[in-house]
């Protein structure tokens, strides 16, 4: 099966977003109120890009089958 590089990119972008967002209060360069909100909105943009890569490239909808469909509550139980 061909490897989808966008799966990797999805996680790279999301982790970078989370790291840069969480560490904003520790970032020595963000000392003014303007810096706080420029950074916040930039992070919102980066997080948005990560989601776009996720849903359109990395993890798009895939083909599925409803074979074996059951009515509610009819799936096999061992207990």
């Amino acid at each position, binding site marked *: *099966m061909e490897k989808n590089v966008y799966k990797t990119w999805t996680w790279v972008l*999301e982790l970078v*977003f*989370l790291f840069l*967002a*969480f*560490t*904003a*209060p*520790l970032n020595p360069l*963000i*000392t*003014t*109120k303007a*810096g*706080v*909100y420029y*950074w*916040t*909105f930039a*992070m*919102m943009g980066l*997080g*948005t890009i*990560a*989601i*776009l890569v*996720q*849903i359109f490239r990395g*993890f*798009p*909808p*895939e*083909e*599925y*089958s*409803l074979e*074996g*469909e*059951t*009515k*509610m*509550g009819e*799936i096999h*139980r*061992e*207990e």
Partner: protein
Amino acid sequence: MLAITLMLLIIYLGFTLALGWWAYSKRTGDTEAEFFVTGWTTGFIGIAFSIAATFASAGYVMGTIGVFYGNPAALTGYAFGTTFAPFLLWIVGRRLWVLGRKYHYSTYGDLLGDFYQSEKLRMTIAILVSIFFAPYLAVNLMGPGILLNQASGGSIPYWVGAVAMACVGTIYTIRGGMRAVVWTDILQTLIMIVGFFVLIFMVFGAAGGWGKVWADLPDKIAAYKPSGGSFWIVLSWFWIVGFMQAGNPDRAFRLLIAKDLYSIRKGVLASLVLLNLWTIIAFLMGWSLAVAVPGITPTDKVVGAAIVKFAPFLMPMFMIMVWAGGMSTLDSGMIGLGAMITKDVYRRNINPRATEKQVSNVSRIITLACGVFALVVALLRPPTLWFFIAGAAAVAMQWIPLMIGALYWKRATTAGAWAGFLSGVAITALFKYVVTCPIPGPGGAPILGMVVNVILFVVVSKATAAMDEKHVALYQDIYHK
């Protein structure tokens, strides 16, 4: 002014009731699938607007805006949370929807009970989440009741607003189920967006415009505290907002109602836009209010105070916004809890042979019971209510690791799920209700709870025998390769 307010409220309630009633006429049949998941016919607008409306409760319109007013720097964590939430919604939704469509699920418990092969686990989760979540329903009646009472100068008793809202919300939810909830949520979202648009212009005008707001916004509240002092509060807000959307039963079950996977994908994208719109609205409101009406306490009165001071003619509109926020969260909570109690407790553990008709009837009775419970609590207004409400989202998010495990991790086991969930709830409740949490803010206790939850879930799963491969494949190998 009071007459106009009452007239608008009556029109609003009448229109909402009519819309919910009309939604019933669009039903696909009188089945439990229709009642709980709209018979899998909802498009992306319904999914996104419904999630957004449920997120923007009466508490958002009053309380959250107040928190942004008092400490906007800490609320950058809220912004990170609304940007992360759709990512998690898609991780869960793209697999959950397929399984839900295939095995006719309408709650997370449906999947958890089936995958982990344990009715006891399923029922325990449903009952614990319901217990912690039920008081939250009452808040959405209290805000509108209090506001109406204050706006009338005390001439309209508090209970009138609470009863009116509870009756309308409960009636259309019982009648139309999830379909009525979705349609009315679209209306509530539009009302709130238009209302905030007007309010933002009003408050910025009162504060002297954008330039003056930005120049006068105090660094003390708008910038981070030195030496990383804001780190934990930012993380805390991120956590509660980021995980709440995929965790709270009042909105997370929207992942099951879509007509196809592409609707979920578009719904997630539209949710991203709407959730971030709520963040931007809250920032703009918070900044401008901090300059226009500084020093208001408690901060949840700040929007009302600004309207009274600068534009009292907008009070009726604000009232409708609060009612719309409350109604959208109330109906979603009732249908979510109704689904869990009906499906996870009654359908699977009390009357497994129940017919569609019986389940449908019981679901309506339980939805009614949820509405009555919320109203009784709202009327009693117990002083400890806020104490318990604080734990609703914190506890509800503890089933997310189990969901991820069921959808993606082949080594997840029933023992691991038990250990993770119970420890997560116990730790969260401990730091929420018993001892002071070392992490500040609303997300402190659930951070600790989820960390312990994940660790025990993984360690115990690894230490116990793996589940049958064919069984796991039923849930995790759902796509054609």
